[in-house]
């Protein structure tokens, strides 16, 4: 286990502050993609407050970032439940203007964004965790609390649907 984590587990607030400084941006973006920037700040701060209390239970079997994402995932879900909403991942992708050289892009980005929003929440969640947060299948499975095979299956079906949606867009 990381020495910084061990110090934080012993109650060293400076070590915990270094962990926050290192991981806060990733956790904030993780939250923002799930529940939007308005609530992301609260969720990210709650994540680190909870992590500070629970860091003694961190056994080092997974990466610290994965462990923090797991806490953030639950914090976002609780916050969304309080606001009587759901984690829609609608904020995961931005509507950017088409690049100057459209031919350079194999996929129409606006069409891709629409196709991503058509995915089921489970498939979208798997895509976000693996593609955007760059987590492995096993890490994503840990956060979601599902088997690794389920993550693999969800990703396969998600990309198959994206291909179909994009094909429909192209033919339309």
């Amino acid at each position, binding site marked *: 286990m990381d020495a910084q984590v061990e110090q934080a587990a012993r109650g060293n607030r400076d070590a915990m502050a270094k962990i926050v400084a290192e991981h806060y941006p990733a956790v*904030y*973006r993780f939250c923002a993609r799930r529940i939007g*920037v308005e609530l992301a*700040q609260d969720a990210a701060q709650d994540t680190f407050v909870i992590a500070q209390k629970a860091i003694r239970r961190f056994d080092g079997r997974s990466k610290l970032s994965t462990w923090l994402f797991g806490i953030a995932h639950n914090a976002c879900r609780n916050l969304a439940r309080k606001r009587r909403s759901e984690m829609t991942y609608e904020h995961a992708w*931005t509507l950017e203007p088409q690049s100057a050289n459209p031919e350079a892009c*194999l996929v129409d980005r606006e069409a891709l964004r629409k196709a991503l929003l058509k995915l089921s929440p489970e498939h979208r969640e798997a895509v976000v965790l693996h593609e955007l947060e760059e987590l492995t299948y096993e890490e994503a499975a840990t956060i979601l609390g599902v088997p690794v095979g389920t993550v693999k299956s969800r990703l396969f079906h998600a*990309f198959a649907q994206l291909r179909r949606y994009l094909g429909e867009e192209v033919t339309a």
Partner: protein
Amino acid sequence: MSDIREDLKAFVDGELGPARASEVEAALESNPELKREVEFLRALSAEIRHIASDAEVKGAQDALARVKGRRRSILLDGWILGSTGVAAILLVVANPLFSRESADQSPNLAAEYADTGVQTKSQSTPVVTESAPSEPATASPAESEGAGRPMAPKDALDMPAVQQGDGFARQQMNEQWSGRSLQKQSRGSDSAEGQVASPRAKGKDEDSPERSARAPQSGGLPLDVKGDAAQKRRVGPSATKNAEVSGPPASVPPKPAQEPQNSFYVALGNAVSFLVVRSPIWVPIFLFGLFMSWRNRRA
């Protein structure tokens, strides 16, 4: 072929085992369509990452402040509040027990005065009545003698020494004392000067200074009765001044409406004792709360 297609995404992501990855590579070499599909999956992943929102990070300093912990007021610490709550529960639980004990302790002084057949101004004031629990036998005979009331110091000396808090003994004392006073009242109503009419009491009155000297050793009240001057010094001029004979003791009707006054003093005694006697409960609990707060802050 379909099995290979299902594993293409995992192959692109590098999530296949070595053996399965070799199988897929071999299939890709032999099938250009699968190869184009792999290229599409890679491009799609890149585009998904490209259009991912990259929100401006906010609130990092607040998160640091929350983790480092703001210096809270020690009185607002959860342990203080928690221990206060525990103390409140303890007090609520202890209250009925204490109320019963206090009711036993509270003296029926007004009834005692009524039994003597003498009504004084000070009887109706809470000052004399409140001082009664600590030394009722000291004040009552002294007042009565200083004002010429039919109460001998001997009676006070015969009363057992009662500590505050010995409710049962005090109750017995009150009953004995009241009964004896009623007897004397019926006999002493004929007395011309309001002196004690009982021959036994009268005879013993003569050696009252001697008994006063013996009293502390014999278990009686340590009353130093040496005459009117001494009584006035003990009781004070105001008490002597306030004490008036309102008439013949036999003609004074008993005061039936003493109960509300007594219940008020019981409640008052409860409240005072609640704060004073039970207050030590708070001390260890509060100290425990302070210790836990210190420990939390240190951590």
